[in-house]
Every structure is written in structure tokens, then in C-alpha cells.
């Protein structure tokens, strides 16, 4: 059951990162349009930078969980290479928990920000006067989904460890081998 949930969450996370990426592509066109309009027609699309900033914040937040599923976080593995498989999985799980803990702390504080935005109906202090809840809410959901993913990966790792041993568990949380890193680039 947990494995199925993991699979589904991974797929959602991947879709989110695609969505975020296409948002980024769209921003590239918006900003390019702004530069060209400003340079050659002397008109400025006011707020292109602001909108792009929002897209960026939302996009990265929605992609945070994908980094976890892809094990793409940088870890310094000078000593790790010398650990036994048992100690490696201890380091993997501790690393995952600490990372999720830090993400949860940020998410908690981000939640406070979102509640403030809601209670004050805050708008951006720019000509666009964007109601900030529009970018804040999906941004917060991205962070929340990253925390959820961290917790989920933790439980699936424990389950795999119990059922199949460290080999299967480290496929979820271990440091990538050179070959895996290469496939990723």
C-alpha cells in the first residue's frame, strides 16, 4: 500500500516539476518580450519581473519534492564511501530525517506568512498590486508536499529495510553512484 502511495506521489511530483518547468519557459518568453519591447519600442510591460519572480518561487517550491524522489540533494560522500552498508543506511535515514526536519521548519514559518497574507488580504507593493495569496498558496503547498514526501520516503525506507534489507532501502535514500549521476546529467 505504502509502495503504491510512493509511486503515485512520485508521479504527482514529476508532473509538478514539468508544470514548473513550462512555467519557467513561459517566463523566459515574457521577459524576452519585455526586453525587446523596452529596447526597440520604448514601452515597458510593467511587472514582467514581478510575475516571473512569482512563477519562480511557485515552480521551485513545487519541484522540491522531486529532488527528494530523485535523490538529487548534494551530500559530501568522502567518508560515506568507507561506511559499511549498515552505517550507510543509518547515514541515509538520518540525512533524510534532518533534511525533512529543516524543510518542515521552513514550511511551518512559511505557513505563518500565508496566514498573515490571508488575514491582512495583503497585496504586493508594486503597480500590479497582486493579491499575494495567489502566489503564496501554491508556493506553500509545494513546501508542504516536500515535507509529506520526506515523511513518506522515510516510512517506505523503514518498511523496505525490514522486509528486504539495506540494498532495497538505499535505492530510495542512498547516495547516487557515479553511474547514476552520469545518467542524470
Amino acid at each position: 500500500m505504502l509502495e503504491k502511495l510512493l509511486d503515485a506521489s512520485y508521479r504527482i511530483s514529476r508532473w509538478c516539476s514539468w508544470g514548473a518547468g513550462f512555467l519557467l519557459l513561459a517566463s523566459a518568453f515574457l521577459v524576452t518580450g519585455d526586453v525587446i519591447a523596452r529596447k526597440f519600442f520604448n514601452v515597458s510591460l510593467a511587472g514582467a519581473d514581478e510575475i516571473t519572480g512569482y512563477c519562480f518561487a511557485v515552480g521551485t517550491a513545487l519541484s522540491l519534492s522531486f529532488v527528494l524522489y530523485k535523490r538529487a540533494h548534494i551530500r559530501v560522500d568522502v567518508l560515506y564511501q568507507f561506511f559499511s552498508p549498515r552505517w550507510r543506511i543509518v547515514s541515509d535515514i538520518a540525512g533524510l530525517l534532518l533534511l525533512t526536519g529543516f524543510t518542515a521548519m521552513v514550511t511551518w514559518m512559511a505557513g505563518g506568512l500565508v496566514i498573515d497574507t490571508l488575514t491582512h488580504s495583503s497585496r504586493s507593493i508594486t503597480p500590479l498590486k497582486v493579491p499575494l495569496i495567489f502566489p503564496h498558496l501554491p508556493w506553500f503547498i509545494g513546501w508542504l508536499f516536500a515535507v509529506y514526501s520526506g515523511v513518506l520516503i522515510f516510512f517506505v525506507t523503514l518498511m523496505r529495510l525490514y522486509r528486504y534489507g539495506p540494498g532495497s532501502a538505499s535505492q530510495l535514500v542512498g547516495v547516487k553512484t557515479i553511474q547514476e549521476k552520469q545518467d542524470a546529467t
Partner: protein
Amino acid sequence: MLITAVCLLVALVAAAVPVAAAMGLLGLSLTSLYSAMPLHRVLGDLAWQNGSDFLLVAIPMFVLLGEILLRTGIASGMYDGMAKWLNWLPGGLMHSNIASSALFAATSGSSVATAATIGTVALPEIKRRRYNHRLFLGSVAAGGTLGILIPPSINLILYGLLTNTSVPALYLAGFIPGVILAMVFMTTIMVACMIFPSWSGIPIKVSFRQRLAALPPLVPPLAIFVAVVGSIYAGWATPTEAAALGVVAALFLALGYGKLSLAMLRDAVEGTMRTTAMIILIILAAIFLNFVLSVIGLTQALTDFIIGLGLTPLMTLLMIVVFYLILGCFMETLSMLLTTAPLTFPIIVSLGYDPVWFGILLMVLLETALITPPIGINLYVVQGIRDKGSMSDVIIGALPFVFSMFVMIAILIIWPQTALWLPELFY
């Protein structure tokens, strides 16, 4: 306080805790140990402010630009063109490794992407043309490092962000040292091949007409460079805007090469968002940590301590250089930049050195870190493409280029104008 902080960071990093978590947790621990104020409350604001910072949008844009260019296949034409023009030099294709890396670096902000792109095209030539495989591998690993020095560079943006230094000025400053370093690399290859002629492989024979025919593939990367870096130098666009221009230009290029498809775009954006989200979390942790360090007074304490040693500015500078060279053997460059720059920068500036110049020196130090064992990402990248043989071949092959980088560090220290002349001309 300093000792506690260092011990904690070393322990977390050595236990292979993800770097973002290590820095964030260090910040949180130092807050609870040494601060009367609940500093962790700024995390939400920091995450939003930096997460939506228009300057930082340049990072995903440059990553995306690289991902698209990688998939257009312009690298092989570029490599072939360089090979035909540089075939007369002793060392043949190895010069092409450096020159096409430099050219690719001028369109890409990442050293790993540069080494991976050029490596994939270059490595099959070792056997075909019987090169000394070690030096050849080393030249690919070293050439790739140019990615972060020659603008556009993602690392220079991060340095600019952390130290409040103008990114356009840094981009201007990186250009000449980048070209010089590429030439120092090529000189290294030439000298090595003159001492050991058997290393230089079977030269390719080309006519002048063939050379001319090899020119057109060199145009697209140059065009992207002109669009991206030119628009920054000319003052038309900020680095982020320039990166967006580059992305759009690369898309048209992909269209021209017949490589544009939905599947290709999906792969490109997937890679981009994975890298971006990873980097942004580290940046957030680093910014939070630096905030904590300055509030609890640790940054000042460290600066006072170093100044109090009573060393001359040059000795202090050399000490910092050695510190980076040692740290670079063990740490990945991005995390190294983000953890250390906020600490070394105030020391350097208080000694009277130029912030822009130090940014460039730091990039060369980070480049060295990319090819010094045991942790040198470019060594892994090259070994990964090669897929067989011993890792030590790459390490030994990269060694002469580590010395080339020492030469570059010396050049920058003795003649700071190599970096500062161009930005001073513009500003």
C-alpha cells in the same frame, strides 16, 4: 562559539547529511545556543524573499539554457570546427577540448555541463587517434571547469548575491581571466607534447577549404554568447533578462536543428527544475546561516581573529588561498562557495582587496576544486562518460592542469588588472 560551529558543521557534513540540511541545522542550533532572539522565525520570509528574487531567476534560466543546448547537438559541430582549426598545434585535439570547452562555457553557466557535453563528443577520439589517454582525459576535465569562470556563470551570480557585488561587473571581470586560463591550459598541453611527442596522437590533416567549411557550426554558440553576454555588457539587460533571451534563442536554435519536440522540452525542464530546487534549498539554508552568523557576531569574531594575527594582507590572502585549495579536495564547489564566501569576503574586503577581483580569484579556486581528488566533480563526470579504466587515470591526467591553475592564481594576485581592467573600462 567558533569551535562549536566548525565542529558541528564538520560532523554533519562528514556524516553525509545533505548540505542544505547541514547548513540549515547549524543555523538553527547556533540560534538556540547563542541567540536571545528566535531567529528561526525569519525562515518563512527568507524563503519567500529569496525564492521570488528576480536576480535568482537567472539560475534556472541558465540551467535551462544549458539543458536545451545539450539536446540541440551543437557540441559535435563545434568540436569538429575547433579541431580543424587547431590541428597544427602539438597536442592536436586536446587543444580542441580546451577551446570548445571555453566556447561552450561562453553559453553555459555550469562546469559540470561543460565537461559532460564536451567529454561525450571528445572521448571516443582517444583511441581513434592514439592520444595519451591520461592527459586527454585531464584536458577534458580541466577545460570543463572554465564554465564557471567565463560568463555567463551561475557561481558568479551566487557570489554576487551573497556579497552584494554587481553581477554585470563580475561578468566583465571573468572574461579576460577565462581566456588567459584557457591559454595557460593549452600551453601546458603544448609543453607536455613537446617533451613527450608520443602523447600528441595522430594529427588530422585538413585543407584550408575544409577549415572554412567547418566554420558555420561555430556561429550558433557565438550568437548565443553575443545575445546573452553582449546584452549584459551593453547594458540592455540584467543577467536574468539576458538568460531569458538565451533560453529563447536556444529554443530557436533547437528548432533550426530539428531537435525541438515536446519530449525534448519535457526532459530539459525536468532536469532544470531538479537542479534548481536543489540549489535553491541550499541557497536558502546558506542565507539563513549567514544571517545567524552575523547576528550572533561570529562573522565579526572571525574577521577580528584573522586581522588580530597581524599578518600582512598578502600573507592572509595566501592563507585563504591555501584554505580553499585544501577544502576543495573534500568539498563540492557549490556548497563550498555558499558556506565560505560570506566568511572570507569580509576579511578580504577589510584587507583592502577588490570585491570583484576576489570573486574571480574565488572562481579559479573553485575550478581547482573541481579537479582535485578525492572529491572533484569534473573528474567523476569524465570518468562516468568513459565508463571503463581506472579513476586514477583521470586524476593523474588532471594534475598538470591543477598546476596551470596555480599559475592562474599567481597571475591574478600579481596582476589584479587582468580581472579589473574590463569592468573599470565600462563603469
